[in-house]
């Protein structure tokens, strides 16, 4: 009788030990990945104000920082992913030239989210537009719908990915506003890397935030504002 009890105890102890060993790495990884238990807050709206007068032609530090942070190759072929790009524009009538970074504009009413058949494109409560790589079937309809050409399709197998920024062959991707950094209380890589502080990142909903104060005091525009998408990225001096 006592023998049987001992066996059972040993078995239970071993099982508990094995379960702990099995779960522990997962818990550790979750902690390492800085997973936040609380969901994104709808009270916040993350955005950027880009001062085009401070953005220098020929400088692509923001692009390089983005590539480094998100594990992109940095190649600029027709099939390579570019989450952020430098655009050189010249007013046809006045000849005024400007250089500015262009990326996902994190719209309040994103056409990519509207057209996505599987809800893989979604808008987080804090205004960040993302692609769920597990739901994306690679139909590219969002790329057709995006007014800013902000999205790229992964055309070939990927290697050496950044664990914080999962990507996948055959799925669509775009600027995540460095959501993994934001969730750690950091700024997006491009904003941090700009040598002229031309990219101001912050909470558009917080009236006391630096970005809100600046948007109140200087003239800024949304690109293709006529589409009524209410973008989270604003441009000054455009």
């Amino acid at each position: 009788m006592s023998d049987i009890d001992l066996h059972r105890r040993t078995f239970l102890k071993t099982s508990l030990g094995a379960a702990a060993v099995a779960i522990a790495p997962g818990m550790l990884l979750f902690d390492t990945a800085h997973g936040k238990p609380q969901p994104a807050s709808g009270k916040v709206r993350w955005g950027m104000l880009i001062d085009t007068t401070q953005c220098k032609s020929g400088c692509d530090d923001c692009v390089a920082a983005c590539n480094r942070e998100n594990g992109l190759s940095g190649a600029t072929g027709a099939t390579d992913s570019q989450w952020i790009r430098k655009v050189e524009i010249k007013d046809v009538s006045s000849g005024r030239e400007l250089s500015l970074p262009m990326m996902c504009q994190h719209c309040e009413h994103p056409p990519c989210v509207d057209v996505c058949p599987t809800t893989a494109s979604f808008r987080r409560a804090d205004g960040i537009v993302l692609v769920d790589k597990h739901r994306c079937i690679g139909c590219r309809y969002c790329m057709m719908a995006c007014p800013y050409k902000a999205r790229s399709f992964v055309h070939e197998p990927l290697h050496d990915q950044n664990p914080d920024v999962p990507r996948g062959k055959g799925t669509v991707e775009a600027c995540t506003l460095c959501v993994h950094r934001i969730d750690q209380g950091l700024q997006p890589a491009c904003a941090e890397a700009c040598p002229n502080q031309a990219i101001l990142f912050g909470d558009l909903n917080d009236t006391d935030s630096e970005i809100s104060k600046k948007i109140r005091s200087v003239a800024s525009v949304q690109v293709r504002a006529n589409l009524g998408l209410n973008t989270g990225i604003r441009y000054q001096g455009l």
Partner: protein
Amino acid sequence: MSARPPMYFKNRLYYVLLAAGGLIALAGLYAVYMMEHHGHIITGMNNQIVWGIPHVFAIFLIVAASGVLNVASIGSVFGKAVYKARAPLAGLLSIAMLAGGLTVLMLDLGRPDRIIVAATNYNITSVFAWNIVLYSGMFSLVLVYLWTMMERRMNPWNKPAGFAVFAWRFVLTTGTGLIFAFLTARQAYGSALLPPMFIVLSFAWGLAVFLVAQAALYAWNEKELDPAILQRTKNLLGVFVIGSLYMVTAYHMTNLYFAHLSGFERFILLDGGIYPNLFWWGYFLLGNLLPLALIYWPGQCKPACVLMASLLVMLGAFMLLYVFIIGGQAYPLDIFPGHEVSSSFGDGQIATYHPSLLEFLLGFGGLAIAFIITITGMHVFNFMPHDKPHIAD
């Protein structure tokens, strides 16, 4: 003669055709395997031209699948005996082309293995998601419709089923047109004219496919089509071709009237290289003027003439879709109006597209699937139209 089943002496020919179709479908599968293994890098598609040749084939097949049912609708809904006798064949062609088109569309996905996600995660605002319901509904409805025609006990349900198919296919082609009409940001698309344009185009393309299939069916059964019937269907094709040309003209005319779209129209119609060439020589001349000349040329209408006109209409369809889908993406998005733009991501530049052989294999694979379903249906069932000696209407 009457003891002969349909396709009686053609058994051997049937298996040869089946093998030929099977080989092409296999080649399409090979293309899918390669695209799955290597990624879309081995196609001509890129981040600027995101939809390519597979979409041209898929959209042709899906639009024609809806349009071919016109023949059935004229019979079942409007009660014309000549067309009613041809409704089963139209139903078969519709199912075959829908299957072929959807296969191409599905297998071109970046992750076709996840297609079930389209059913488990449904986005109510996505016209793509609506189309999943429309396509599967169409498939089921046409199957029921065929059942009501081919099973005597189900005959009383034929009229309601015919009406349901009639309504459904209008909604379906509207849905196909809306895929593009909802793209407000792009100059080529975002027009409310597109759904009706696709509906009228579907009439012409569907009837052209029908007339080719009918000619083959009659030839294989060693029968001759009544010249009066040939004359009627030929004239109907002429009307549909004129109607679709009108819609395409209206679409371009409205664009031309909008100053901000004149650059795009100039590109498509005048100086865009391959696109104006395909539009004028391919679509307008070969796909419209020549078939209309063949159809309306005074004198006796010959089956070969009608067959040629139908094949040309189909060819023109591919040309128009290439210009519409690929030319529409090749012209740069106007993100900064009034500015010259350049970047590493093709801003302000005409995008280039060189379709790969694999894309054509996938597209032809879809055609082959439609072909296999059609010839097998014709082989197994009796789809030969049975015309009454006197045309009642």
